[in-house]
């Protein structure tokens, strides 16, 4: 196992300062080279979970097991590029060990070659997302973390970026964990889908996909969607 997540409990404080459980007894694991998708309704604690895995939130009970000194490539929902640095420099700062040629190649792969010298403010959200993805890959991650990578893009752009990510996972076999509220997105990208319950979140069902990404067929996708729907409705406990 490359990633083993066991969050026994994680509280969150609402606006009034009351503490309520956000996650309770959530367990899942990913093998090296696998792409896992965490799917759940909005506000069920998906982003919280991703931040815990990324080591950004130490305030929880449980354990996240990763290889020692694992490099994590994080793609946040907002691209979080440095607005005062060019795209090229944004990648360079995150990945100082990468050569200029490697960075150029990476930017070219995401169709960003002509934007290398541009500042992030000059880019559309779609391009900025791609740049954030390029930055995460530049560090040569053992684990790629994607937080709603396709949210708030228009349909055509979302589809295009989805194909990009699918191709990336197929070609580089980078272990990937993505969280999304969109089941079809998970079906199109993952080897394994973890369906979460509403708050407090735990894994309601795990769907194995034996025909992931390029090999996914419409019928199979439909069957998976049906399976997930059943899992959502299943009684708790």
């Amino acid at each position, binding site marked *: 196992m490359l990633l083993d997540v066991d969050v026994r409990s994680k509280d969150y404080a609402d606006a009034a300062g009351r503490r309520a459980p956000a996650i309770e007894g959530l367990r899942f694991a990913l093998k090296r080279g696998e792409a896992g998708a965490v799917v759940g309704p909005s506000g069920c604690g998906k982003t919280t979970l991703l931040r815990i895995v990324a080591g950004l939130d130490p305030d929880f009970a449980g354990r996240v097991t990763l290889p020692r000194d694992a490099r*994590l490539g*994080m793609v*946040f929902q907002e691209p979080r590029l*440095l607005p005062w640095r060019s795209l090229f*420099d944004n990648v360079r*700062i995150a990945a100082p060990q990468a050569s200029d040629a490697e960075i150029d190649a990476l930017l070219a792969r995401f169709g960003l070659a002509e934007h290398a010298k541009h*500042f992030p403010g000059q880019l559309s959200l779609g391009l900025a997302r791609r740049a954030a993805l390029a930055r995460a890959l530049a560090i040569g991650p053992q684990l790629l973390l994607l937080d709603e990578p396709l949210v708030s893009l228009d349909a055509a752009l979302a589809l295009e970026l989805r194909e990009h990510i699918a191709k990336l996972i197929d070609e580089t076999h980078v272990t990937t964990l993505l969280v999304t509220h969109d089941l079809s997105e998970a079906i199109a990208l993952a080897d394994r889908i973890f369906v979460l319950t509403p708050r407090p979140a735990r894994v309601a069902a795990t769907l194995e996909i034996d025909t992931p990404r390029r090999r996914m067929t419409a019928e199979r996708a439909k069957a998976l969607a049906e399976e997930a729907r059943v899992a959502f409705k299943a009684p708790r406990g």
Partner: protein
Amino acid sequence: MIRLLSFLSMLALWQGAALLSDPRHLPAPGPVGLAIWEEARSGALFSNLGATLARVAASFALAMTLGSALGYWMGRDRRVDAILDPWLVALLNLPALVVIVLAYIWAGLGEAAAVGAVALNKLPGAMVVAREGARAQDPLLDEMARAFRLPWRARLRHLVLPQLAPYLAAATRSGLSLVWKIVLIVELIGRPNGVGFKINMAFQLFDVRLLLAYALPFVGLMLCVETFLVQPFERRVSRWR
């Protein structure tokens, strides 16, 4: 063009006023220009301007470095803010003259006391601005830096300083004009050279010509610093906008 006209009308007004008044009280631009030329030829103008400029640079650099670091720390850490805030308020409300006189009494009439006193006057202003800048840092980018495990040097260079730069530029602008004014007072009270010393001498001799011959070139010099150093720096750091 309008600026030039405005400047020329200022000179004309000066010339007109000088014609109507006692030349000992208000000498005309011509004689003042001549006095500047004489002081420049003897080298006294440059050595005194240089001494003052060196004090401005030293105390400004000291106050900005220390003030930015302390202010940034206060902005990032509530506890430090609580500890240092009363000191900051006290310093902000301490009259410049009190600091200068006390510095000379406690540390002697030396260069360290002079530069230190000026720096101490500028310090709280720099701290306040840097604290504001630190509070305005984007927490989302901080988190990004943590996720990518950026070393502190990279964070300082690529995250902290670019976000702090507009604040530091504002502090530089207001700080420079404050510092050079206080440096003149420090020199007037306890230094054997510099523009402030010369102005004191002119005052003793009732020589307005000499007073203006030192004051005007120095104002011009500070204007040059503002135009050719501070403003280009401001433009550079805000280029990405």
